[in-house]
């Protein structure tokens, strides 16, 4: 069998993972600095495809920590990348908890993501977990919900942390019981013990991954105030209606959340060579420019600017089609960070607007890898690279890094092969 570029790359990882790590880190950082690296960095994939390929279930991934390392190591070995964004295979959106403890910088970031064992303690209604509310082979899912009434904006604005901590958490997490009750106190002690276990496990897992040549950068967390309201308090539908029905309350609440989100983000100090603050955007593509410009972008922009000035780099996931709002990104300081675009209707148009200003990540539709052929994937990436090179500041990635279970292995290999073939500058 003829060896393909990916096979040679796997061999290099086996032979000298340290050299690979060094090379990949440098390649990635050059792209972040908007410079031309030796080759376009290629981002890793995972999701249901990882489970299918390695033979573990989402239940294992969520609750059976011992089964995770073997599966992740095999996967990362067989599908090498410059940035395996599998930093959270067993974690789910939970920024509201970091916010509830924003005044406790020693652990606010530790509980920024939800995991299955913590969900079992809190019984939170925001998420559903395999082997619990949903089947064992189902991906853990963030569902959100409505936990705040429209007339409660005043309380949120007055004291966001107190309101979230003492009113929202008890409503959304029946496992906590009454604030201050023995059940409440016991639940938090259990959460602490669980997070210590999970944290130690993750530390070890990432250490092992680095030894195998996987890049890792320190990450802290931020959020868009309007998404805090949509994801955790009022449900996205409620948030979109509130912007119109009670605009001044909604805006005041967004403004009030900014300083607390910054507290969470700055709890992890910026470290060289780069500490990224991760922000997944949710309501962005759903808003018309007028609402985006009033209730979404001003607060997000402020958060980004303050964190960049403090020495952090942004890593922002622009969900959906962000093209209608893409010009606003140019208001940020040049080189502020990485913008990952899920599915802009014209990816090259996004690139043309932002090149030289923002590191752009994306370019490959998930549907193409999931349901295309190796030839189509090769052709798509070849054409894309022809349009994007020779500028630096680009990272090749699918729109999201989660692939469906039935994704053909040959397609994932074709994606990495094409990056190695056509990405060289």
């Amino acid at each position: 069998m003829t060896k393909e570029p990916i096979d040679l790359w796997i061999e290099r990882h086996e032979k000298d993972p340290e050299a690979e790590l060094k090379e990949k880190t440098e390649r990635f950082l050059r792209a972040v600095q908007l410079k031309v690296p030796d080759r376009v960095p290629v981002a890793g994939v995972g999701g249901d495809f990882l489970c299918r390929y390695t033979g573990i279930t989402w239940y294992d991934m969520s609750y059976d920590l011992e089964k995770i390392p073997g599966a992740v190591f095999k996967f990362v070995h067989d599908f090498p990348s410059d940035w395996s964004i599998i930093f959270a295979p067993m974690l789910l959106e939970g920024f509201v908890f970091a916010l509830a403890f924003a005044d406790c910088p020693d652990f606010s970031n530790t509980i920024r993501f939800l995991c299955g064992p913590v969900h079992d303690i809190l019984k939170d209604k925001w998420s559903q977990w395999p082997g619990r509310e949903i089947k064992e082979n189902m991906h853990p899912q963030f569902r959100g919900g409505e936990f705040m009434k429209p007339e409660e904006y005043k309380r949120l604005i007055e004291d966001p942390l107190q309101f979230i901590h003492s009113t929202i958490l008890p409503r959304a997490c029946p496992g906590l019981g009454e604030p201050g009750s023995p059940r409440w106190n016991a639940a938090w002690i259990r959460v602490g013990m669980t997070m210590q276990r999970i944290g130690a496990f993750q530390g070890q897992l990432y250490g092992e991954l680095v030894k195998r040549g996987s890049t890792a950068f320190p990450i802290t967390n931020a959020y868009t105030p309007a998404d805090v309201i949509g994801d955790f308090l009022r449900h996205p539908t409620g948030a979109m209606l509130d912007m119109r029905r009670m605009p001044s309350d909604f805006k005041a609440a967004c403004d009030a959340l900014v300083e607390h989100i910054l507290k969470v983000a700055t709890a992890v100090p910026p470290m060289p060579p780069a500490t990224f603050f991760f922000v997944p955007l949710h309501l962005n593509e759903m808003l018309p420019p007028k609402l985006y410009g009033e209730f979404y972008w001003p607060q997000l922009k402020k958060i980004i600017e303050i964190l960049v000035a403090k020495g952090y780099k942004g890593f922002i996931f622009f969900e959906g089609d962000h093209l209608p709002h893409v010009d606003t990104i140019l208001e940020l300081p040049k080189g502020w960070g990485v913008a990952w675009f899920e599915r802009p209707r014209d990816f090259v148009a996004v690139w043309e607007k932002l090149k030289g200003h923002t590191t752009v990540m994306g370019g490959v539709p998930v549907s193409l890898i999931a349901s295309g052929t190796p030839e189509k994937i090769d052709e798509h990436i070849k054409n894309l690279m022809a349009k994007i090179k020779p500028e630096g500041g680009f990272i090749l990635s699918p729109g999201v890094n989660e692939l469906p279970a039935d994704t053909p292995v040959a397609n994932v290999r074709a994606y990495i092969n094409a990056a190695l073939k056509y990405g060289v500058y």
Partner: protein
Amino acid sequence: MLDELLRAILDLDEGKALELTKRLVESGEDPLKILDCVRAATDEIGKRFERGEYFVADLVMAGEILKGISEIIAPKLRETGKKREVVGKLLIGTVEGDIHDIGKNIVVTMAEAAGFEVVDLGVDVPPERFVEAIKQHNPDIVGLSGLLTLAIDSMKRTVDAINAAGLRDKVKIIIGGGRVDENVKEYTGADAWTNDAATGIRIMLKLVEEKRRGQS
């Protein structure tokens, strides 16, 4: 006043649209004419969405307004025993493994406003439930919704199951959600795809027409 109502809906002016509806009902306007106005609004909303003038948040607001109008005229419709003409029957659900329903719910509201009779199977719907429901409700269109990438597999399995049950010729299938596109349509064997509810409604109206023509 009906023109004014149409404008208020399209301006997404909730207060004004509901107030006008109340006044129209009080002044004895035919509720079916108000429903025609709602249908015309739905059509125009779809066009504006396709032109990039409306966004999802606008559809959500429009959906609320249309729901509000329907609630106001419902008693009048019952009173007069009048029934609107049903343009087609839609069976919809979020496919197996996925519990997201924001998009699906917008489709349900807008499809009802456009004159569809809608059967909503909810979320995490396995292929066999779609098959049973097709047998039971005999819909014109089956809508498969999903947000997560895993929904791509579930959509394919659902279309396969409908095929295997010998029901494929009886229905038109549309898939919808943030991560579907032409590739996914081909892969799943659906008839149409959409990333948004507004375009979805317009496609479904065309599909119903095609289906009717095919039968006649």
